[in-house]
């Protein structure tokens, strides 16, 4: 599906693409960073629809137990487990990462640093192909005998390791292989992003002239690379436990199931920042453009992001407070976890300070950027309850946790994506999106989102445990008021999903006959706006690649008539 969608969008490129394969092969075998970005973007969107469909099915089962879900049918306990597990895996590994890092990283980094492509275009293509393979394996794993893996996206052994317990012999191994291949794809892509940013900047572009979103994607790639290694080793061990019957995680044979939790969360927590930092980078670029103001504290923001990355390696055990770890260790991890709220709060203040005194334009991308701040704040503040071991022992594995991380991941993966998509759509497709439809879609997404997850906070505080298929079996969790809250959340989800139709309608309508965007519709300063929309193969004519003379956020310069000063304009 992704390839055909890409093919439709890129016939504009035809005139410029003189080398490489032709015809349909051009779109599935291209090494152009922009086409690879589109492949990631549309694969990610497609997977997002599947993840959303899964959420719809299990939310229906939770609110109306035993209902014949339209478009799915009766949900069995095994199917329910497979749905929640794969919803989580898909949304993080096959939506948030490919869209925020791979799609926008691929699209923006070469354009924003004034290069004609990534440094290793063929490795870039390989990265997408491995990613696509991983997505196909994951989807196939849902249809093998025994069904898809249902041991949660965290895949704790022994449940994930022993087929007797999880009942999905083939499904769990395929799930693990899919995740491992996804890691390989992002290691290949990450090396490309990092070396491209380090080495291929336009002449004159110094470290502090790099737009924040490029920095953030590259810092995220470094974080990913340094945190995922132990989990790759751990995944190899889990796969051997599953297939050959070793006992790495089996306490009866001298193994240790907690080892997996350490390896998983040593990756799993930095992973939050791996997807958060690109979303913050997107937000800060959009806010600077639409506040018509220089980013407040560029260097401080950069150092803060690095500090967040470093700290994120020392917080992982806050996921294991009830796993039997030493209480003294729990204290240490409580302190580091609460410390990490300091740099994150700093990033929020930088954004607020950028807005202060700006000349704010409430376009659709700006609304998404502001909503990101507001909603992520709720996610961050509720995290403090969970980072403190005293409170977490009670909240652990309740819907409070679930609502908390959806208040972080939804702003990151969904709001951040829509922010970037609506902002760079004119560059990607050469057309303007309809602002009125964009705002309808914005409010139609944000309002129901809060109606989904605020009730879940309340339910979590009321003791509603996660991973339960049917609350009717638990009389104290099956009261009328609790069911009312569950139904509010489910109906809000239905409303939110329905409003996504507006987005796809707007996207296709604008793509086909939206007004032409021109090179720089937002009057922005960074380099991607100095070329045609959409940019040709090679981004600029080969002998006219831009030079850089100043930082990326020169808005409202007092000596200039125009209120923006592009990076590539000589003094």
């Amino acid at each position, binding site marked *: 599906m992704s390839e055909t969608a890409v093919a439709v969008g890129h016939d504009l490129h035809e005139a410029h693409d003189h080398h490489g394969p032709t015809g349909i092969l051009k779109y599935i075998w291209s090494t152009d960073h922009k086409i690879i970005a589109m492949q990631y973007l549309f694969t990610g969107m497609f997977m997002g629809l599947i993840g959303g469909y899964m959420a719809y099915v299990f939310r229906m089962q939770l609110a109306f137990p035993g209902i014949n879900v339209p478009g799915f049918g009766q949900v069995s306990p095994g199917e329910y487990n497979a749905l929640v597990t794969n919803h989580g895996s898909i949304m993080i590994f096959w939506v948030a990462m490919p869209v925020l890092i791979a799609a926008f990283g691929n699209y923006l980094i070469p354009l924003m640093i004034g290069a004609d492509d990534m440094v290793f275009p063929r490795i870039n293509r390989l990265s997408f192909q491995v990613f696509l393979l991983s997505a196909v394996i994951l989807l196939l794993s849902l249809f093998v005998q025994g069904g898809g893996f249902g041991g949660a996206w965290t895949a704790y052994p022994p449940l994930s390791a022993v087929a007797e317990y999880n009942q999905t012999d083939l499904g769990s191994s395929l799930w693990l292989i899919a995740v491992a291949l996804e890691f390989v794809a992002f290691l290949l892509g990450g090396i490309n992003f990092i070396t491209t940013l380090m080495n*291929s900047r336009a002449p004159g572009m110094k470290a502090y002239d790099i737009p924040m979103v490029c920095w953030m994607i590259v810092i995220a790639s470094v974080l990913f690379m340094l945190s995922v290694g132990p989990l790759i080793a751990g995944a190899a061990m889990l796969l051997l436990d599953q297939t050959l019957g070793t*006992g790495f995680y089996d306490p009866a044979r001298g193994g240790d199931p907690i080892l997996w939790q350490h390896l998983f969360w040593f990756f799993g927590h930095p992973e939050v920042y791996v997807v958060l930092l690109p979303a913050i980078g997107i937000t800060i670029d959009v806010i600077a453009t639409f506040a018509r103001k220089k980013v407040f504290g560029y260097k401080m923001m950069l150092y803060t992001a690095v500090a967040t990355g470093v700290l994120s390696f020392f917080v992982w055990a806050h996921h294991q407070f009830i796993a039997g770890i030493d209480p003294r260790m729990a204290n240490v991890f409580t302190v580091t976890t609460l410390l990490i709220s300091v740099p994150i709060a700093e990033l929020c203040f930088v954004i607020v300070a950028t807005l202060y005194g700006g000349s704010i334009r409430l376009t659709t991308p700006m609304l998404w950027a502001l909503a990101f701040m507001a909603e992520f704040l709720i996610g961050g503040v509720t995290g403090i309850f969970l980072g403190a071991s005293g409170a977490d022992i009670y909240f652990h594995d309740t819907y409070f946790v679930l609502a908390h991380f959806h208040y972080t991941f939804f702003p990151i993966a969904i709001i951040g994506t829509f922010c970037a998509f609506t902002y760079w759509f004119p560059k990607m497709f050469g057309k303007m999106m309809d602002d009125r439809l964009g705002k309808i879609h914005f409010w139609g997404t944000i309002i129901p989102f809060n109606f989904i997850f605020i009730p879940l906070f309340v339910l979590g505080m009321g003791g509603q445990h996660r991973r339960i298929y049917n609350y009717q079996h638990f009389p104290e969790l099956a009261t009328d008021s609790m069911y009312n809250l569950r139904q509010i959340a489910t109906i809000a989800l239905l409303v939110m999903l329905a409003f996504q139709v507006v987005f796809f309608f707007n996207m296709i309508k604008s793509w086909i006959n939206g007004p032409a965007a021109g090179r720089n519709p937002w009057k922005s300063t960074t380099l991607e706006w100095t070329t045609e929309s959409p940019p040709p193969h090679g981004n600029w004519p080969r002998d006219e690649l831009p030079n850089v003379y100043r930082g990326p956020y020169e808005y409202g310069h007092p000596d200039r008539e125009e209120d923006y000063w592009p990076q590539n304009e000589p003094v």
Partner: protein
Amino acid sequence: MKPIATTRSATGVPTGRLAIWWVLASEVVIFGGLLASYLMFRLGHPEWAEAASHTNTWVGAFNTFVLLTSSFTAVLAHQAAEKGDGKAAAKYLVLTIGGALTFALVKAGEWTYEISHGYTITANNFWAFYYTAAGLHALHVIGGAIIMGFIAFDAYRGKELQRVELIGIYWHFVDVVWIFLFPLLYIAK
């Protein structure tokens, strides 16, 4: 035609060399995670020493010698490539591949002997780590040797000589991993 991006060097370090160091960074944490897990277990289970006593230190030492020698020929290949002598570089790379093959063959014989004597991957967790860590390393040896074959083929015709250095850096890394594995799996009894 290479993109201009590939030919730029804002840091002053050639892009290929920069990338290979990042590859190694990602590899260090993979082996690091595995070996840290092994060490934690080993410290908590003194009885693993009994299982470890069945590994053959002399075979391990021979393989260490083979791998170190192959690193030496990799350096000679780099030196030849620096001088622009592609044919000599290819010759030394082929010698390095020979070292890799010797290493893999010795390993195969060693494993066959151990498995036939009941020391399989499921025997206990020492052997599970032994086969996993050495197996992951052996995959790196084999993968590296295959890539080296392609690079030698190009180098012989005088093309892409800078890659001789890159595969050499990788090969030293494979060597260093083995320098960690050898004492941890063979010497510590």
